[in-house]
């Protein structure tokens, strides 16, 4: 117990309870002063949740240095946090590697929770007419599966941008370390508040939260809006930090076109996160205000316009898809040359294609609204702009295929996941244009075909690259290598079963299954497909379970791996694992191209101040 009390997390929770009570008291007090009935659940929950989150962050200790500065004092030197051992992960660390691991753990936790939600409602869908869940419970679980997964993805990409980007560019840390801690710790109460909607009546709108339905949904809806709004700050500030870090802290000689390709992907992602994310926050806050104060933005009776919500919402939420997949595609491009021992084909084109996808992503949001009653003349431009995104994405595929071509390929677990990503993302990509084309979209809109499409896009663009990255950088984080046997078992459990499931999703969509409905008519004739999909979803989940077993066993008694496990050219592998506290002790200079695998005498980086033999291959 004595060991636990100093933990930032525990202090945070204590302060969160105080903050929530303060918020509820504030609302009640104001209502008493205004001669209203003192208790009203909705404003109390929202204000309580908000203050709870702020007090939580204060309790953790994230504000400590800023408070000292504001009162005119210097912040103390935080010293070597490594001596805290495992406890450093539960407190307000400013080190990018610790924060990266914190993000990773939170992301995996939310990923697991959201996955369990999916398993529950998949059991219900296995047979028609199942009474396992009431429709409201089904809707809540289905909606939470979507949004918790999305938050988990956002946190997961923050994990890798935080952990890897400073190492790749040769920096000691992120440029704003305290802001970095803030971005992580605000995601914790955001997740808590989001999940609390389960116990506050749930919500039944799906992850999009469209009004007018969301303006009437149960109280859980407000927790959804508040949770996502808070999580959006995490994403925005993390993106700000990444952009500033890449602009300001690159090693000597690292010109833009000598940056690792993952850094380009991180930049492209961060441009979207930094700007567009504000609009999903705004659109959600506007619905919150509509519910709390009756402001009729989206209420036609008061002159409002429900379609406006969709414009604001999709202006972020479509580019958000590129936020999810660009880092994943960056990981594919980053890892592929290592395992085929060949230069990345068309480096500059791949780098530019990430930016092109990000910028084109700002012009495509309307394709989500073809069937929503948007103006007719807007349909064609949005169709064309959406189809244009296929061009830079095609550049990436071309580069991957050309990189693999005649390479000396080896197949350790990360490479297997990279190859799976390429295949599955291809399925997701090819199933996309029919949704972007107005004529076919009007048929496909709101069917399971869409569900299959975006599961393929996100598994290929995020989930599989995410696992590849964990297997690849795990030795860097811990100095231990994850088991290849269990890794391959995970791969063979997850990839085929997931692919079958997603293809069946598309099939039943074409046969007439609507998305977001809790039941279906056996006469539609895809009962067997539904059963197979449920079995496949459990096999996929089993794969994730194997991953966690692997993680646990490796941490307990894994094979030590302190050297350049993958024989990579990247600077982080040229120093011992686990990574030293401040990354590079010697000055690092970039002297060559990042991906010249197989070329003799072409080092990428050089360290000053020590002998270089054997360090640069």
């Amino acid at each position, binding site marked *: 117990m004595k060991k636990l009390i100093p933990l930032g997390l525990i202090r945070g929770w204590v302060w969160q309870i105080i903050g929530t009570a303060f918020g509820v008291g504030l609302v009640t007090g104001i209502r008493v002063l205004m001669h209203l009935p003192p208790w009203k659940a909705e404003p109390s929950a929202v204000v309580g949740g908000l203050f709870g989150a702020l007090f939580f962050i204060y309790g953790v200790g994230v504000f400590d240095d800023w408070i000292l500065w504001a009162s005119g004092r210097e912040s103390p030197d935080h010293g070597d946090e490594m001596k805290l051992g495992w406890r450093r992960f539960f407190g307000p660390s400013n080190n990018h590697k610790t924060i990266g691991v914190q993000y990773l753990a939170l992301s995996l936790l939310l990923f697991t929770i959201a996955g369990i939600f999916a398993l529950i409602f998949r059991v219900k869908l296995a047979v028609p007419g199942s009474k396992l869940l009431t429709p409201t419970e089904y809707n809540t679980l289905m909606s939470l599966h979507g949004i918790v997964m999305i938050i988990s993805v956002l946190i997961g990409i923050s994990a890798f941008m935080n952990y890897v980007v400073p190492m790749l560019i040769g920096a000691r840390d992120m440029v704003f370390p305290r802001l970095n801690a803030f971005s992580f710790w605000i995601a914790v109460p955001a997740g808590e508040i989001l999940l609390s909607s389960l116990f506050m009546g749930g919500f039944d709108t799906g992850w999009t939260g469209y009004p007018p339905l969301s303006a009437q949904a149960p109280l859980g809806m407000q927790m959804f809006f508040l949770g996502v709004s808070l999580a959006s700050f995490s994403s925005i500030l993390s993106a700000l930090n990444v952009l500033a870090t890449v602009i300001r*802290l690159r090693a000597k000689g690292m010109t833009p076109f000598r940056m690792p390709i993952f850094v380009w992907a991180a930049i492209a992602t961060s441009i979207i996160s930094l700007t567009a994310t504000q609009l999903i926050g705004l659109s959600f806050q506007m619905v919150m205000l509509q519910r709390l104060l009756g402001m009729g933005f989206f209420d036609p009776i008061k002159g409002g316009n429900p379609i406006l919500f969709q414009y604001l919402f999709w202006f972020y939420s479509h580019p958000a898809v590129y936020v999810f997949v660009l880092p994943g595609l960056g990981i594919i491009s980053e890892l592929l040359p290592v395992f085929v021992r060949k230069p990345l084909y068309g480096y500059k084109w791949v780098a530019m294609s990430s930016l092109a996808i990000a910028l084109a992503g700002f012009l495509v949001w309307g394709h989500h609204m073809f069937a929503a009653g948007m103006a007719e003349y807007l349909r064609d431009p949005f169709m064309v702009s959406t189809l244009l995104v296929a061009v830079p994405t095609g550049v990436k595929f071309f580069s991957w295929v050309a990189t693999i071509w005649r390479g000396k390929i080896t197949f350790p677990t990360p490479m297997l996941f990279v190859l799976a990503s390429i295949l599955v993302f291809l399925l997701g990509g090819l199933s996309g244009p029919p949704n972007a084309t107005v004529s076919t979209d009007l048929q496909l809109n709101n069917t399971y075909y869409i569900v299959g499409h975006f599961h393929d896009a996100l598994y290929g663009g995020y989930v599989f690259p995410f696992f590849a990255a964990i297997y690849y950088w795990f030795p860097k984080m811990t100095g231990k290598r994850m088991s290849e046997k269990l890794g391959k078992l995970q791969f063979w459990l997850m990839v085929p079963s997931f692919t079958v499931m997603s293809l069946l999703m598309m099939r039943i969509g074409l046969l007439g299954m609507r998305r977001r409905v809790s039941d279906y008519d056996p006469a539609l004739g895809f009962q067997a497909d539904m059963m197979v999909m449920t079995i496949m979803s459990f096999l996929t989940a089993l794969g994730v379970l194997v991953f966690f077993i692997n993680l646990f066993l490796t941490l307990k008694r894994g094979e030590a791996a302190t050297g350049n496990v993958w024989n990579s050219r990247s600077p982080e592998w040229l120093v011992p694992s686990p990574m030293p506290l401040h990354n590079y002790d010697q000055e690092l200079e970039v002297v060559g191209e990042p991906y010249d695998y197989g070329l003799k005498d072409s080092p990428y980086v050089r360290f000053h101040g020590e002998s270089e033999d054997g360090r640069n291959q």
Partner: protein
Amino acid sequence: MVETNKASALRLGMLIFGALAVATAVEFLLALFAYVLPILVVIALIKAGLVMYYYMHINRLFEADPDPDQESFSYKLMTNRIGLWFFMLSDSFIFGGLLVSRFNLLGLTRPDVNQFTGLGVTSLLLISSFFANRAETAMVHGDRKQTTISLVVTILLGLLFLAGVIGIEWRIAPFRPADNVAGAIFYAMTGFHAFHVLTGITFLSIVLGNNLRMRYTSEKHWAVEAAVTYWHFIDVVWIIFYPALYLIGSVH
């Protein structure tokens, strides 16, 4: 030498303030007597440009680093500037979203609000921006006392602005937030902006406290620059919001 620079900085600040004041008067009179929409838009953009260039010094972002050492003060100062501008860029998307909502929902009509309170609060914020600029320029020239006075005046004007918007404007408006969509938009836009004014006042007060504790020098005063730049940003937002809420369109 320093004295002449100081005098010319004061002259420049006053010149820009004069231009902003004239532009505001022109847009107000135009809206009343000779309403031409494109001219109002152009005037607002010019005003915003003047503040961003002369008060917020956006050009500093594009200067070369005097010292390439990443640990040096000047390098870190530039990094902080970039971070602050990224933050303001991000924030401006919230205000952009509100602006889009306003034109989507109300089109070329506007909420029926009192023109003279509008002009009054706008003038308060404009004058406060002048004094914020004075605070920063005085700090550059090492004049702590002038900085303190200017910060106090800025904060007082900011508080008066809040009193004008929340205490007067919100009370005399002929609608409540829940009445109709014009009310919803008006309270949302002024409310989001007022929240930013409140945070700006908080930052300025912190900077004022630390200035009284002699924490800043003419070389090292990033906090002063940041708080003042943020205050100007709030002014730029109002420069756009003022015509959008008060001047553009006809009252139904």
